[in-house]
């Protein structure tokens, strides 16, 4: 059993803006998004200038870089990993698969993206404090960095959400 204390989320979120430790979590992607994640972390893009650093344990992480449509096989491990993060938990969902399952959105062996996983996390009492979705197949490194800055509240969102209802006939 682990003892967990309460935390001032607003204060922690302010501190995270200057120091962002990321953990890469693959829930069963085709690996193209993962290669782009590695690309974004290379010296070429120099994300360390924003205080971003890759860590090897979810216990150290502030942000999870989430790829893949969540396969049934990976589900328990994914829930366990996100649960292992100390709060505040921020998640950057990457690629079409992460967002809505991509081309595997309705297959028997996947959950169909982070939205469905969020419900399971809620049922297990795992709270996620902020989520940003970055589309693409695969997602571009520049988009990953932009999504990260959006997640931290350092830039404004450019696109607006528009809900469209399909009419019959």
């Amino acid at each position, binding site marked *: 059993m682990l003892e967990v204390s309460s935390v001032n989320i607003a204060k922690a979120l302010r501190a995270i803006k200057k120091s962002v430790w990321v953990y890469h979590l693959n829930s069963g992607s085709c690996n193209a998004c993962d290669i782009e994640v590695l690309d974004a972390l290379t010296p070429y893009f120099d994300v360390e200038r924003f205080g971003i650093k890759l860590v090897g344990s979810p216990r150290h992480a502030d942000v999870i870089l989430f790829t893949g449509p969540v396969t049934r096989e990976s589900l328990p491990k994914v829930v366990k990993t996100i649960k292992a993060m*100390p709060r505040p938990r921020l998640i950057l969902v990457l690629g079409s698969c992460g967002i809505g399952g991509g081309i595997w959105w309705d297959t028997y062996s996947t959950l169909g993206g982070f939205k469905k996983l969020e419900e399971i996390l809620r049922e297990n009492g795992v709270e996620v404090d902020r989520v940003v979705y970055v589309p693409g197949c695969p997602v571009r490194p520049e988009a990953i960095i932009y999504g990260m800055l959006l997640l931290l509240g350092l830039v404004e969102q450019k696109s607006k959400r528009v809900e469209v209802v399909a009419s019959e006939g």
Partner: protein
Amino acid sequence: MLYSVAAAVLSLALAPVYDGLERKIRAAIHTRIGPPILQTWYDILKLFTKEIVVPVGGAWYTLVTALELLALIASSAILYHISSYGLGHATLLESVAFIVLTSVVATLAIVRAVSQNNVFSVVGGFREFSLMLSAEPFLAVSFLLLASGAGSLASKSIATAVLAVSSYVISGRVPYDIAEAEPELASGVNIELAGPLLGLATISSVLKKLVSATLTALALISFVGLSGLSSLTAVVIATPVVWLVHTVVSTILGRSRVDLAIRFLYVLLFFLSSALVLSFGLGL
């Protein structure tokens, strides 16, 4: 005494800034911009705002982490105290206390690692143990020799070289960072730490670098023959310079193979120690 305390406090506060400078210089060598100089301070302050997740082992575990930090603060305080009159004039008690404290730091890190219910952490603990065995004895012998003030210029120079190499190893830099490794090895001794506990461990790792740089600076300044406030000031100024040299060395060794690094260390320290014994034996 008052000046030594002031120097120790100043250096403890500046150590994370030196670490930030190290990251900035490493970035410059990689031709990238790199993080702000205060980045290590930002990291530490952030960790203290995060949720406390106490790993299996509870209070006992927290105590070991805090004791490790205290032992590091005490060992750097002893170094600054010795700096105020030069390494060659250190008393036996001070020298032994310093050696014991550095061994205590490594032992506590191992105890912390193996007491966790995580196999990666236990593996990290054993890696820490093998590093301790390979560097600590050489560090202890060279430090005691220099502190005794005995020997000729040649033997003192060789002892300083042994001290410089072994203190680089205890600083936990590449390629001798295998205890807590980097993400590609799935992390190590700190794998279960989160929030403020990880913050304490981060301060400890920065202080290890400070002790390592101060130790080499102290050995080098003792050649100039300064004493009193001028010796202390010289050590405080020389510490970031040694830190800079460590930075450049670690960046150059960034892609060296871990197994070769350990073998190279054994050969180098064996060669230097043989030269040291010879120079003492022949009275050179």
